[in-house]
């Protein structure tokens, strides 16, 4: 239905039940009643329940625009502007790219329909006058280049709002609902590097260009150079690269295997990308085991998440119950399992006969281990009420906290209590838990160690057995704790 001019709405003739109430209007962020992230308070109708005079709040969208200006004060056209948003993903604050725009011939850009929050801007651009001459053997010997002035062999380093070239020093932009903000970002050129790398001299096998990556907030991004040029037999160079700290990936010509050089400072013109310390990539074969009592899910996917909690690879498990991951870099990974048929968690894993609990893998460079993983299915729904004294409380955060929470992040379940104080926690994995209800806790960094500790001490313990299915109704309400 459409609200009247005074914003009022009414739904009548409703049976007793539980309803999700949502509102939408052009220029506002659509939202459910008392929405917090993906949770909201459902409205429960029935005898003795009040579902009237509700206030559904919608937040107006914001706009962020600006201008990119060069060292001469002139607008920079065709600059690539990236918008990063700070958001709470799986209840951990992260800053990730959420939009791109190009500047027009006035150097302006705009991001519209933005939700409130903290964000950052970066600009990647090329000076319109830049030229990158091919290095001669004389230059590589330290003699100046002829023909092109050094002032033209320059690049703009990626520059963040606040006019810094380091993401860590970027100035956050706080956007409130309905804001129309305008910002300026100033670019300054720096000498462009010519980075030397070696390729097979015979030209028979071809070669791949090294790829530079840079850490930007919570992600690692590919950095585009101005190109590659071969300057001598077996010697090529990347051109137009501003100095900075980069990691490098390249393909080993003979084996085709991806190799990885960890972060290094690239700061000297003519610097050689020394590949002698490169780490070969690893390969992991995962074999899935399901408890005998349960059917093997029709479609099952496995994913690897790195230590920065980014999913770096995923595969569908084949008919033999296996999935293979190639070209992995050394490091710690967490295995996740998922299926449209249900919720799964890794109960334990084993490699070469050695069993280890949980789902964390330490992958060595060049290794190719076979790992067996045992899955456990989340087939239980936990239902109950949140109560403070004699009163059922709506809108509180209810969390099912596993024992040893830091090691079992995938076992957490949360809900927001509905208007009658009821909650439902679905797809609960077998294990031991404490269930808590906390007021005004939606901005908690609840996955961070220790944040929930003092609430867990006053929570209600609950164990879900490996063979349990269906719904568990908590006989006692969960006491709502103050923040």
């Amino acid at each position: 239905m459409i609200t009247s001019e005074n914003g009022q709405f009414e739904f009548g003739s409703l049976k007793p039940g539980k309803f999700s109430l949502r509102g939408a209007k052009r220029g506002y962020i659509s939202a459910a009643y008392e929405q917090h992230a993906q949770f909201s308070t459902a409205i429960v109708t029935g005898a003795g329940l009040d579902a009237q005079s509700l206030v559904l709040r919608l937040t107006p969208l914001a706009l962020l625009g600006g201008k990119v200006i060069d060292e001469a004060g002139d607008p920079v056209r065709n600059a690539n502007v990236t918008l990063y948003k700070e958001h709470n993903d799986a209840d951990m604050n992260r800053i990730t790219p959420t939009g791109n725009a190009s500047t027009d011939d006035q150097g302006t850009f705009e991001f519209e329909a933005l939700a409130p929050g903290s964000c950052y801007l970066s600009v990647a651009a090329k000076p319109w006058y830049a030229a990158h001459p091919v290095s001669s053997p004389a230059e590589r010997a330290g003699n100046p280049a002829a023909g092109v002035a050094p002032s033209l062999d320059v690049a703009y380093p990626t520059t963040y709002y606040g006019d810094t070239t380091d993401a860590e020093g970027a100035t956050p932009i706080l956007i409130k609902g309905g804001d129309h903000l305008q910002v300026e970002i100033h670019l300054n050129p720096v000498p462009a590097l010519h980075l030397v790398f070696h390729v097979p001299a015979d030209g028979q096998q071809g070669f791949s260009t090294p790829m530079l990556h840079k850490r930007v907030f919570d992600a690692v991004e590919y950095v585009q150079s101005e190109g590659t040029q071969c300057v001598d037999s077996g010697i090529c160079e990347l051109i137009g690269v501003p100095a900075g700290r980069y990691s490098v990936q390249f393909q080993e010509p003979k084996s085709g295997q991806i190799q990885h050089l960890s972060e290094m400072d690239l700061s000297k013109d003519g610097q050689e990308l020394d590949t002698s310390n490169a780490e070969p990539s690893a390969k992991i074969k995962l074999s899935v085991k399901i408890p005998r009592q349960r059917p093997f899910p029709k479609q099952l996917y496995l994913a690897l998440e790195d230590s920065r909690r980014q999913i770096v690879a995923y595969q569908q498990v084949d008919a033999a119950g296996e999935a293979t991951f190639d070209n992995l870099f050394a490091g710690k990974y967490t295995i996740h399992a998922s299926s449209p048929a249900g919720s799964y968690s890794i109960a334990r894993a084993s490699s070469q006969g050695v069993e280890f609990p949980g789902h964390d893998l330490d992958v060595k460079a060049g290794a190719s281990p076979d790992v067996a993983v045992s899955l456990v299915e989340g087939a239980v729904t936990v239902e109950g009420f949140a109560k403070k004294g004699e009163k059922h409380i709506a809108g509180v955060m209810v969390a099912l906290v596993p024992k040893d929470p830091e090691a079992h992040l995938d076992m957490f379940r949360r809900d927001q209590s509905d208007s009658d104080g009821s909650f439902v926690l679905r797809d609960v994995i077998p294990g031991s838990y404490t269930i808590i209800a906390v007021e005004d806790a939606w901005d908690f960094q609840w996955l961070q160690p220790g944040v929930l500790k003092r609430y867990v001490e006053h929570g209600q313990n609950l164990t879900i057995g490996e063979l349990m299915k269906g719904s568990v109704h908590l006989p006692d309400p969960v006491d709502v704790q103050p923040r």
Partner: protein
Amino acid sequence: MFRFTPLVRFAVLVLGLTLLQPSAPLCAQGAPTDRSEAAGPKFKIDGTIVSSLTGMPLGQARVSLIDTELPLTHSG
């Protein structure tokens, strides 16, 4: 109320891939649901939509009500 599982974005990807499978049954027809209203007391839900910024009522906003047990039963 839980609206959208957040735990692993990967799960969403999996669901998307599943829906893209040509062999996946699209809009499978189940037995018709008995939608007749049971006799008994009736209730109402009412209220106001406002701007979170100014508190001013928002006319011409769209409101929908979805029975969480029977999807899409009562949307406006």
